[in-house]
């Protein structure tokens, strides 16, 4: 899947936040995303590269991948299952 062309249902801006806030906010925000829709998360915490993919692949959700943006943050994509 081409991550750059994904149109997410919503975007969570967690830039500058550190563990555990990006994961905590991801979990909370994902609750409001309809099944089948995609949540995009913007993060800068290096720990998120482990935490978010691990969490995003649980509970029937699908972690679609992440891309490092030129602006110094990482974009993560989770499809709600």
């Amino acid at each position, binding site marked *: 899947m081409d991550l750059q062309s994904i149109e997410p249902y919503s975007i969570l801006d967690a830039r*500058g936040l*550190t563990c555990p806030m990006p994961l905590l906010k991801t*979990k909370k925000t994902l609750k409001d995303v309809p099944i089948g829709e995609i949540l995009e998360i*913007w993060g800068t915490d290096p720990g998120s590269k482990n935490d978010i993919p*691990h969490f995003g692949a649980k509970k029937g959700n699908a972690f679609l991948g992440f891309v490092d943006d030129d602006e110094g943050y990482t974009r993560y994509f989770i499809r709600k299952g």
Partner: protein
Amino acid sequence: MASTSFWSSLKEEARRNYIAVFEQEWPTWLAGIFLAIVALLIFLWQGPWGVAAGYRNLGDWIVYGAGGGGDRPFSPWLHPIALTNTGLVVGALVSAMLSRQFKIHRAPPLEYAKSLIGGVFMGAGAVLAAGCNVGGFYTAAAMFDMGGLAMMAGLIAGAWIGLRYLLWEMEHLQQKGVEQRPSNDAWVKIQPYLGGTVLILVIAAFYGYSLLDKTDLGGLLFFGLLIGLIMHRSRFCFVRAFRCPFMTGDAEMVKVVAMSLMIYGMGTAVIKWAWIQEPSMGVTHNFWIGSLFGGVIFGIGMLLAGGCASSTLWRIGEGQTKMVLTLLAFALTNSALASFLKNHDLYDKMGQGLFIPDTLTWYVTVPSFLLFFVFWAFVAIWNEKSEKFVVF
């Protein structure tokens, strides 16, 4: 031709190993084993590994430097735990640079405030418990001091309270993300060379201490460097062992810390039982009032700050600016509260060390210790599936 082939083969192998060690993240279970081994080496080398006393030394110096009076504090260059802590920060810095990941991270204002308040809580909790998540829990438990287990109970309770606060904060306080400056390409390319230079300087410092007939202190600086390297490469965080069972149900860090403690504890049992080190060594924690309530306060603080005593240090090494506030608040609070309690004869009322084998004998203590941590891991694994303790 043979020589060219040998060197190209060596170069290729070195490149592949460099990628495996410094570009790929280490699994936390491996870090748990390494950490227990280094902690045991420190125990054999000098004494039980701790962190909070190094923070206090920093706090004492800030108070003394600001004209707060009192005796001149112990020199940080001759203070065993301050040196280990210095090694930890530098080890994480070296690791971050060798993996081209060092970057100044900025945080939203609320995060800086929480880092400061979290540091105050942790500094206070570490005085009451006579140690932090390392000295008061990890090492204390491995030394078979009952205070370590009492602090563990407190940390679990504190993590639950801290997480409830974070959930409240998410509902009631809005904060926007903060843009970060993208890393400059030249800066990224030069990092491994800078990291390698710092590593050579630390090794030189070890030999420098040896020349001054202080090899023991040079060794502690080097052990600290190894811990910083291990923790940064694996992003080893004790907080996750106490927080994740309530937050996502994830049991990974509980399993890792439990396994690490079993290795550390069994190594300690061999060392103490064989009298290689004094059996009562490291049994100095405030069981049970100080350990339990100190653990609760420390647990709240580590959730607010987003890091414990050890992870605050390695996160500073990778460039997390907000953790510098945690370090300073922890150090000053720890120094001030310790002085207050001692000046008012309150410190002794917090409890005293209880060496478990003195009560249960070694024969009962060793299997009980193992079973206890196996039980903790199994409860966490059961919770991962059932989510019984997950709070939202």
